[in-house]
């Protein structure tokens, strides 16, 4: 696995191989992120708490009938959103978990009010979804909260899916999945360049949000009640092509060597074998991105979904249990053989 980016920067700075000013600037951004970041389960607890609290606050607003109806609710929600953004950006919130929580809950309440108001006022799904997309873009840019940015990515993908389904675009659910998967892939692939851009703190949360949304769409396809089918031939083919392209770029000059060809052949074989379950290939692609960027969280997400999709794939195979056990044995033997071959070639 590649070392984390900040470690590489520190080492390059120590060896005077990079401009010291640029290194210290980038390290300051990274250190700030590390100092403010909490473990994932603490962030999950905070996010769930904000969701529940915002639900109660919305219920209260409707019970006391202070929220105007239709578009009035949307304007009221917009004010709440701006207020929450101002609170989150205030210096007082920087060191206060309570104010950060309040701002996040306010942000969620504002979002709900805007969606409800625009939806009721216009009775148009495209307009509502378009407003949702605009609000998410502003949230990612101007609401400096990792949980909010993660959720905003998910809301944006949901709005995109709603638009595709509303306009009855052929294979719209597959297109929505592919757009989120391609955006996630490009974001993680170009992460070093994006970290020196205008919104370095947004790169990680948005990247995780897009990956999680793409996996969620594929997982929803396994549940019949949603009638979503983002896991068709288009998705499978595009995912195999994407992983092959990543392998091609990563292998560099070793493309035509024995191990390079073995890796490409294995990707192709895996893609063919799991064409009915593109989640496996999506998880494999995320693993490649995780190893490339040295991001342990991304690797954890990829392993979790890989296990989930592999289990679903074997469960849904229309063969007997005896044949399934044989297939599992053969898959294990193939992977072990490939590992031995790659170690020997190295």
């Amino acid at each position, binding site marked *: 696995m590649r070392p984390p980016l900040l470690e590489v920067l520190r080492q390059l700075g120590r060896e005077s191989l990079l401009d010291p000013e640029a290194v210290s600037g980038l390290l300051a951004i990274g250190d700030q992120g590390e100092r403010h970041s909490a473990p994932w389960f603490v962030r999950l607890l905070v996010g769930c708490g904000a969701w529940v609290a915002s639900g109660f*606050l919305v219920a209260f607003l409707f019970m006391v009938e202070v929220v105007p109806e239709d578009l009035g609710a949307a304007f009221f929600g917009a004010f709440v959103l701006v207020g929450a953004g101002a609170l989150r950006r205030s210096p007082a919130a920087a060191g206060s978990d309570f104010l950060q929580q*309040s701002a996040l*809950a306010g942000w969620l309440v504002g979002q709900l009010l805007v969606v409800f108001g625009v939806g009721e006022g216009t009775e148009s799904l495209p307009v509502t979804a378009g407003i949702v997309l605009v609000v998410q873009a502003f949230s990612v840019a101007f609401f400096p909260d990792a949980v909010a940015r993660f959720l905003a990515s998910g809301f944006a993908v949901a709005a995109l899916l709603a638009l595709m389904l509303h306009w009855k675009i052929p294979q719209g659910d597959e297109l929505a999945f592919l757009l989120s998967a391609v955006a996630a892939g490009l974001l993680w692939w170009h992460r070093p360049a994006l970290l020196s851009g205008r919104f370095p703190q947004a790169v990680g949360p948005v990247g995780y949000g897009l990956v999680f949304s793409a996996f969620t769409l594929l997982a929803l396809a396994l549940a019949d009640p949603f009638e979503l089918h983002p896991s068709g031939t288009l998705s499978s083919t595009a995912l195999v092509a994407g992983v092959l392209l990543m392998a091609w770029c990563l292998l560099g000059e070793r493309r035509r060597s024995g191990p390079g060809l073995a890796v490409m052949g294995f990707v192709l074989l895996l893609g063919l074998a799991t064409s009915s379950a593109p989640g496996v290939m999506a998880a494999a692609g995320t693993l490649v991105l995780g190893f490339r960027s040295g991001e342990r969280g991304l690797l954890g997400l990829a392993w979790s979904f890989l296990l989930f999709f592999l289990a679903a794939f074997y469960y849904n195979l229309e063969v007997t249990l005896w044949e399934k056990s044989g297939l599992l044995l053969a898959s294990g033997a193939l992977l072990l053989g490939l590992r031995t071959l790659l170690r020997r070639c190295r």
Partner: protein
Amino acid sequence: MCSTNSLAWGAWEFFRRRNPGPLTSSWVSRALAALCLFYAAVPSWMAILDSRFEGPWLGPVFLAALLVAIFRLLRPRERDLFQPAAGLAAAISVVTVTASRVLLEESETQEAGVLLIGFLVLAQVAGAAAWLRRAGRSS
């Protein structure tokens, strides 16, 4: 289910301390702790919400015992912050369910109750996050 998972978790922690070599994975301990807390929290909610509940209050008793185990028995140096976070989440859920029952069923002004529960959740989660961050920094 709670007692079975608690036994498995206790056995894992016991053998991990005696011979940590092959039992270094923190995920087994995390999964067992989360399962124990889940199986203690759900009967606790049911006991609080169901007014006709007459059975023994095993859920709250198990939950209290698990919280004592997480915060008192596990040594801070060996303690992974996941277990306290999961314990706090379970405790927050039980406190919120209790407050909801009291404020929404037995209060005359439901609006004020709903507002109070919202702020109660915010305060609990903010307190838990602040404590977990401080504990993380100190370790």
